């Protein structure tokens, strides 16, 4: 049973436009959410995170939005650049879980020239 779901396996976006990656979760105990980015033949790297006490966190071109009532979060990339082409993993953790993070299956983002 997937506790963190990324229902879109892939997404194509024109360079310069906004990329929106979505993530849903089922465990209401999750209180910390992260996005990781992965290039081929490399390990995932941390991108941005958000605590459940917030509904938005912004870092440069990347913004994560959290809707707790809908158990949904999204990552917005504006403007999209060719280097953003990668697999994006949504992840979540619950308090008292010894820092255990549950990852989604990932969404492959293609930025088109």
């Amino acid at each position, binding site marked *: 049973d997937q506790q963190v779901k990324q229902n879109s396996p892939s997404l194509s976006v024109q360079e310069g436009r906004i990329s929106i990656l979505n993530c849903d979760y089922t465990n209401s105990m999750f*209180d*910390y959410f*992260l996005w*990781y980015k992965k290039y081929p*033949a*490399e*390990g*995932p*790297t*941390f991108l941005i*995170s958000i*605590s459940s006490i917030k509904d938005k966190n912004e870092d440069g071109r990347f913004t994560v939005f959290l809707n707790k009532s809908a158990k949904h979060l999204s990552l917005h990339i504006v403007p999209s650049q060719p280097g953003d082409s990668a697999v994006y*993993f949504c992840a979540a*953790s619950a*308090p008292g879980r*010894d*820092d*255990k*993070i*549950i*990852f*989604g*299956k*990932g969404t492959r983002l293609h930025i088109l020239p």
Partner: protein
Amino acid sequence: DARVTQTPRDKVTEMGQEVTMRCQPILGHNTVFWYRQTMMQGLELLAYFRNRAPLDDSGMPKDRFSAEMPDATLATLKIQPSEPRDSAVYFCASGLVLAGAVSSEQFFGPGTRLTVL
């Protein structure tokens, strides 16, 4: 430039053989994780350690997988005997968990691509 290292990067073996994957976490990190990435399951947590003690290995098939931290600079994941369904990319990650912290960032190694024929 501190980073997690993993060896080997690629491993091709035959069914039934023993496979050992190694990881050197970032110096000073107190938590080490082993993940497996497959197309079907995404990133699955297999096991993790805090201060070299195993905290959770419930994601690991215990009859054939074992994970250890002989010392603070080395974590190993062993499969014996290996099976074709074990073919995947295995990632090690490390992090520094501080008391009272909400969570900590995990730093991933480049992975070991395992192919079991």
